[in-house]
């Protein structure tokens, strides 16, 4: 296995210990619950969507370091983005996480989110990193059912 530092990058540790936008959003007009059956992680993503733009976004819940950091960094990355931009970012994020292990991903658009590239070496943890994003997608579709990582 590659070094644990590949997975738990400084930036990930920082967001895990001090998650940003980690609260309820009273004026949200979109929200969804995410649930990872494997480990019992639960989270709720809130979005204030205005004219196709993510004006504000926050999350609540309990999860592992990877899922908390991913949620936190997702909220930072998406504030002010259009729905289209958000979808594209998720696609790129997903590709980086599931690409072949020995290829370094080339995704400049991801910015800071590229720190999650190390997760690809830990296939069982990919779901932890994508839970927040799947939940966000559900919130944007305004699906009532909680999403799971299945």
């Amino acid at each position, binding site marked *: 296995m590659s070094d644990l530092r590949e997975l738990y990058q400084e930036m990930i*540790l920082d967001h895990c*210990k001090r998650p940003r936008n980690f609260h309820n959003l009273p004026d949200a007009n979109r929200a969804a619950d995410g649930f990872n059956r494997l*480990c019992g992680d*639960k989270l709720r993503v809130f979005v204030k969507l205005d004219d196709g733009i993510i004006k504000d976004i926050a999350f609540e819940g309990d999860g*592992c*370091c990877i899922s908390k950091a991913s949620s936190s960094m997702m909220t930072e990355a998406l504030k002010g983005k259009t729905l289209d931009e958000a979808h594209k970012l998720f696609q790129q994020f997903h590709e980086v996480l599931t690409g072949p292990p020995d290829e370094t991903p080339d995704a400049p658009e991801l910015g800071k989110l590229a720190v999650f590239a190390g997760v690809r070496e830990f296939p069982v943890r990919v779901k*932890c990193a994508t839970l927040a994003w799947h939940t966000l997608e559900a919130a944007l579709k305004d699906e009532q059912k909680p999403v799971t990582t299945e």
Partner: protein
Amino acid sequence: MTRQLSKTPAPAQPPHFDVHRIREDFPILHNKVHNKTLVYLDNAATTQKPNLVINALRRYYGSENANIHRGVYLLSQLATDLYEQARRKVQRFINAAESREIIFTRGTTEAINLVASSYGRTNFKPGDQIILTGMEHLSNIVPWQIICQQTGAVLRVAPFDDNGELILDEYERLFTPRTRFVTAVHLSKSLGTINPVKRMIAIAHAHNVPVFIDGAQSIAHGPIDVQDIDADFYAFSGHKLYGPTGIGALYGKARFLEEMPPYQGGGDMIASVTFEKTEYNELPYKFEAGTPNIAGGIGLGAAIDYLTSVGLPNIVAHESRLLEYAHSRLSGIPGLRVVGTARQKGGVISFVLKGIHPHDIGTILDGDGIAVRTGHHCCQPVMDRFQIPATARASFALYNTIPEIDALADGILKVIGFLGS
């Protein structure tokens, strides 16, 4: 500092038991994971296999393979004899009165489904009550829920206290004239609690209620005498007993099994068939439709031989020593809480770390070759009871060592150093 915890004195090894010699019997223990020596502490999930079992499987497929109960030729006779010998080994191992009371299944899960479906569907009526405990594995909950949906029976749950001990008074209070069945785990996978099954069964029998005991976790960790505890049904899985996957056994008292309808239809379970009528075969074959897991049965027999040669009392002594040592080392780690502190406990230690998710614990320990389980261990109701989403769990087997527990404790300190705030 916490490091000094490693000075906890290790209790003495029981006589006649040399764990290093035992380890030689298990080839996988000499493998490396992530370039580290494997420290396998997920024995509640499944146990590793000794050479005796691996060789029995190899020998069977290499020189003994044939279908059973049908051929007149020598090889089929041989395979049949080996398979039926394995049944008698199971019988002796749990001290069943007769070998026809041993039914081979795929494992505990299938055994529970068999009883729930065959006994339950015949005997449960709307409003009937089935008692189980709050610490059941999902496979001892869901099959009963399914039968409840089909028959209109309802489940009644016996609670446990903050230590993870069943509250016996509350269990007893659940009995009513509508109670039809009790199903209970012997040794809890998530908490390690050993339930007082003999007393629980006596209480149920005083109300004329039969009892199923889920022995998945207890079978390899202490002598079982189904007649002494007076269980009406008892089941276990081979793979948790150092045997192969895909094989297990259901014990049932003959008088129940004889009355119960077959669970599945097929070859071997019939005496005669016409399109009008089928006569079912005698016990145990009535419940063994189709070609069974012959190799698995023979492998399970070999696993029982292995355990018998090591000696269950030696295993119990060794594992309690591991558990005692693990408790003293782990409970001294700041921020660590042990979940499940019953007075009667098997070799399972579930724990949570303050502010650190079990999943992260599992990944970091894995980096050091230490395999522990993280999650809800198929016991979500137990997690809900303690209001935690999940735990990390180490569970011990006869080949684990004191230095492996030191490695676990050091690994946990590393996790705290890495992720603690």
